[in-house]
C-alpha cells in the first residue's frame, strides 16, 4: 500500500561517478592526412568531418574563406552543381559547408551503404572545384541579399560591432563584412584561396558513427592519393595586432527597433590556460545555464528578456567573455545595471554552498551529455585537437568541478570579470 508519499522530499541523488573517455583511433591516409575515428552508435550511419586550415585567419580579403568554402559544391571539372546536389539527395546524404575563424569545414552524413558514392563525389569537390562563373554570380547575389537581411538585425549589429571594438577593424577576428565586399570579391580570389588552402598537408579528418576498415579504405581510395595539386601550402605568417577601443560604451542607433541587443565583455585566458576550467565554472554560475544568476534575476525575476546568457568564447588565438541578450528598449539600461550588479556580486560575495553544489552537479551532467554518442564525442575531439589538448582536459574539468571553493571563485571573478573593465555595446532605439 502506498499510504504516505512525501512529495516534498527529492529521491536519492546518485552522483555521477563514471565519465567516458574519448577513444579515437588515429591513422593516416597514404598521403599523410590524419584520420581520427570514433567508432560507436547503433545505426549504420557515418559522419565525416573534413577540416582544412582555411578560415578567416588565412584570408587576404573579406568573404574569401567563407565563399570558397560555401561554393565547393557549385561545380567541378567532372560534375555540375546540379549533378552534385542530385547525388547527395538521391542517396539521402547531407553535406554541410561552413568556414569559421580558422577552418574551412566539409561535414558529411551518410548511410554506410552509400559511402563509396558519397566519398567519391565529396573528393571531387575537394580536389577539382572550379567555381564556375555563372554559379559565382548567382551565389554572390543570393548571399548579398541574405546579408542585407541579416545585417538589419540589432543582434547582428551588436555582435559585429562588439568584435570590432574588441579586436580593431583589421583583425581577422573582427566581423566587419560590408555589403560592398560582395562587389569586390572575384572568382579568381576564391580560386587562389582554394588552391592554396584545400590541400592534403593542410587537412585532417574526423570520422564518427559506425566505422569499419572499409571506411578508411574508401577514404584512402578517393582522398589519400597524391593526385591533388602539388602546391605546398604557404601558411601566411601573419601576426595581427589586437587594437581594442579605449572607449568602453558604444551604442548603435536603430530608430524603429522594438528591442535593444546588448553585449558586454572582456578578454580572458584561453582554453589551454590553467585557470580556464575553473573560470568555466564561474561563468556557469553567472550566466552559463538556465538556472544562472543572470537568468534568475533578469528573466525570471524582472521579466526583462526572453533569455540572457554569458559565454566564454575560445578562439585559437584569443578568448573572451561576454554577456548577450535582447531586451525591451525601455529596460536596456536597467538590464546593464543588473548585469553589473551580478558581476560585482560574483567578486564580492562568496557563492553559497547550495548554489555551488547545484552548479557542480549540473556541470557534471553537462559533461556526460556532451560526451554522449559518437557525434558529440567527435565534436569534443575536434575542440581538443584545436588546442592540442587530450583526455587530461576532461579530467582537469572534473577536478575543477570537484574541488573549486567559494574563495577561489571570488579570486577568479576579481582577476578576470571586473565589470568596470568591460566593453559594452548596445544596438536598438
Amino acid at each position, binding site marked *: 500500500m502506498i499510504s504516505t508519499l512525501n512529495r*516534498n522530499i*527529492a*529521491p536519492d541523488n546518485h552522483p555521477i561517478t563514471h565519465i567516458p573517455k574519448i577513444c579515437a583511433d588515429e591513422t593516416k591516409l597514404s598521403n599523410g592526412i590524419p584520420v581520427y575515428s570514433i567508432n560507436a552508435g*547503433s545505426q549504420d550511419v557515418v559522419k565525416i568531418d573534413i577540416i582544412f586550415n582555411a578560415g578567416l585567419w588565412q584570408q587576404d580579403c573579406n568573404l574569401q574563406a567563407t565563399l570558397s568554402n560555401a561554393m565547393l559544391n557549385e561545380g567541378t571539372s567532372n560534375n555540375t552543381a546540379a549533378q552534385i546536389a542530385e547525388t547527395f539527395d*538521391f542517396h539521402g546524404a547531407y553535406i554541410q559547408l561552413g568556414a569559421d575563424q580558422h577552418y574551412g569545414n566539409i561535414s558529411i552524413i551518410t548511410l554506410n551503404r552509400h559511402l563509396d558514392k558519397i566519398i567519391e563525389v565529396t573528393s571531387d569537390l575537394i580536389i577539382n572545384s572550379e567555381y564556375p562563373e555563372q554559379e559565382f554570380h548567382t551565389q554572390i547575389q543570393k548571399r548579398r541579399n541574405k546579408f542585407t537581411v541579416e545585417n538589419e538585425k540589432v543582434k547582428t549589429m551588436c555582435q559585429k560591432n562588439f568584435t570590432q571594438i574588441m579586436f580593431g577593424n583589421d583583425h581577422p577576428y573582427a566581423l566587419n563584412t560590408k555589403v560592398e565586399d560582395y562587389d569586390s570579391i572575384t572568382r579568381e580570389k576564391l580560386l587562389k584561396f582554394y588552391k592554396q588552402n584545400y590541400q592534403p598537408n593542410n587537412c585532417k579528418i574526423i570520422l564518427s558513427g559506425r566505422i569499419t576498415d572499409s571506411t578508411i579504405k574508401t577514404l584512402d581510395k578517393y582522398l589519400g592519393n597524391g593526385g591533388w595539386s602539388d602546391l605546398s601550402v604557404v601558411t601566411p605568417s601573419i601576426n595581427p595586432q589586437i587594437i581594442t577601443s579605449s572607449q568602453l560604451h558604444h551604442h548603435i542607433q536603430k530608430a524603429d527597433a522594438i528591442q535593444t541587443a546588448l553585449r558586454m565583455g572582456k578578454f580572458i585566458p584561453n582554453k589551454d590556460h590553467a585557470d580556464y576550467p575553473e573560470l568555466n565554472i564561474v561563468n556557469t554560475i553567472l550566466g552559463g545555464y538556465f538556472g544562472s544568476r543572470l537568468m534568475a534575476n533578469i528573466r525570471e525575476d524582472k521579466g526583462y528578456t526572453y533569455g540572457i546568457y554569458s559565454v566564454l568564447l575560445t578562439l585559437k588565438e584569443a578568448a573572451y567573455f561576454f554577456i548577450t541578450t535582447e531586451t525591451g528598449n525601455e529596460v536596456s539600461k536597467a538590464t546593464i545595471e543588473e548585469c553589473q550588479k551580478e558581476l560585482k556580486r560574483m567578486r564580492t560575495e562568496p557563492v553559497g554552498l547550495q548554489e555551488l553544489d547545484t552548479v557542480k552537479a549540473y556541470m557534471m551532467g553537462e559533461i556526460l551529455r556532451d560526451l554522449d554518442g559518437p557525434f558529440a564525442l567527435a565534436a569534443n575531439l575536434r575542440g581538443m585537437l584545436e588546442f592540442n589538448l587530450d583526455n587530461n582536459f576532461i579530467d582537469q574539468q572534473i577536478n575543477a568541478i570537484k574541488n573549486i571553493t567559494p574563495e577561489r571563485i571570488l579570486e577568479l571573478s576579481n582577476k578576470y570579470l571586473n565589470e568596470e573593465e568591460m566593453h559594452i555595446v548596445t544596438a536598438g532605439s
Partner: protein
Amino acid sequence: MINFSRHKLNNGLTILVHRDDTTPMAALNIAYNVGSRDEDPNRTGFAHLFEHLMFGGSKNIPVYDEPLQRVGGDNNAYTTNDLTNYYLTLPADNLETGFWLESDRMLELDFCQKSLDVQKNVVIEEFKQRYLNQLYGDSFALLRALAYKEHPYQWPTIGKDINHIEEATLEHVKDFFFSHYAPNNAVLVASGNVNTDEVLAYAEKWFGSIPRREVTPRNLPVEPPQTEYRFQEVKKDVPLDAIYMAWHMCDRLSPEFHTTDLISDVLSNGQSSRLFRRLVIEQQLFTELDAYISGDTDAGLFIVSGKLNPEVTHIQAQQAIEKEIAIISKEPVSESELEKVKNKVEANLLYSEINYLTKAMNLANYEILGSADMINSQAQHYREVTPEKLLSVAQKIFVKSNQSVIHYHKQS
C-alpha cells in the same frame, strides 16, 4: 525499427518505454494533449503561456529547475498548435528525480500572482524577440489568418493578440490547467538506459495517485472548404520583397498525407529539387524559396514561401511558382525523381533513430496522434506512393479557389 512497450495506469496515464543502452542517459518526455487549437478565441496564447508557467514551481516543489540540475539533468519544452511537450534528460541512475518533478507539476502547479506576472512579461518579450522584432516575423500569422476562417489554426501558438496574454488572470490559468492537464490527457515516454520494471514502479509511485480529471472535450470547428482565391498585400520595413502562398491539404492521419509530403519534397527538398534548381538558380527569381507542409494534426496547409530578388516583381514570382505547380499537377514525376525523395525520407527516418531523446519525442507525438505504433510504419507508407497517386493529390490540392497568397512588400 523502434521497439517499445505500452502500459496504462488506473488514472489513465499512458506510459511508453524504449530502451537504448548505447547511452548512459535517460530521457523522460511528457506530452499533454493540448495545443493552441484548444484555446478560447478570446484567450489565445494560453497553451504556450502555460508551458512557461510549468517552470514556476509546483504544489510541493517550489522551483523546478534546481532539483533537476542537482542530479545533472537538463530540460525544455515546446508548444505547437496540437500539443504541449515537456522533456528532460538526466544520468539514468537519477531517473526517479524526473518522475518526482514531473508528477508534482501534473498534480498541481503553485498558482501564484508573482510567477504569473513574470512569465507574462517573459512571453511578451518572446513575442517581441521572435515575432515583432524579427523581419517577416508576422508573415505566418498573416497567412494563417487568411487561410483559416473557422478553425483555430488561424492563430499562431504565441497568440492572436498580445493583449490576451496581458489580460490573463490566475483564475483563467487555473481553469486551463484543470481542464487540460490530467493523467488521462497525457503520454509519458521513458527512453535511454532504462528498464521497464523500474520505469513502471516509478510511474505507479509518483503518478499513480494523481486523480483522473474531466478533460474539456475537443470540439473544434471544421474549416469549411475554401471556395474563393484569397489575396492580401502588406507593406513593411524589410530589405527584400517576399511571397507566401498556401493551399489547404489533408489531415495528418489521411491516407494522402505521405503523398502530399512527397510533393513538397519533389518541389523543394534539397538543392536538386525543382524549385531550387529552376527558380533560384536558373531563373534567379528568388534568394530563397521553399515548399513544405505544416504537418498539423487537423487539415493543414501546403505552403510555398520565398524572398524575391530585388528586380523581380510579385507577379513574376507568383507566376513562376504557379507554373511549377501546374507542371506537377499535369505531368507524372519520373520513377527516379520519386525514388530520390523516398530515399531521402527513409534516410531521415533512420537518422531520427540515433538519439534517445528524439525517439522519446517522436513516440510521444505519435501516441498523441493515435498510436505510437505508427512510428514504425512511416517508411512503408512513403514507399507505397506512386507517380499516379502523387499526380491525383496534386490535382486535388492545387486549385485556384483553394489558394491564399500574401505579397509582402518592402517599404520603398
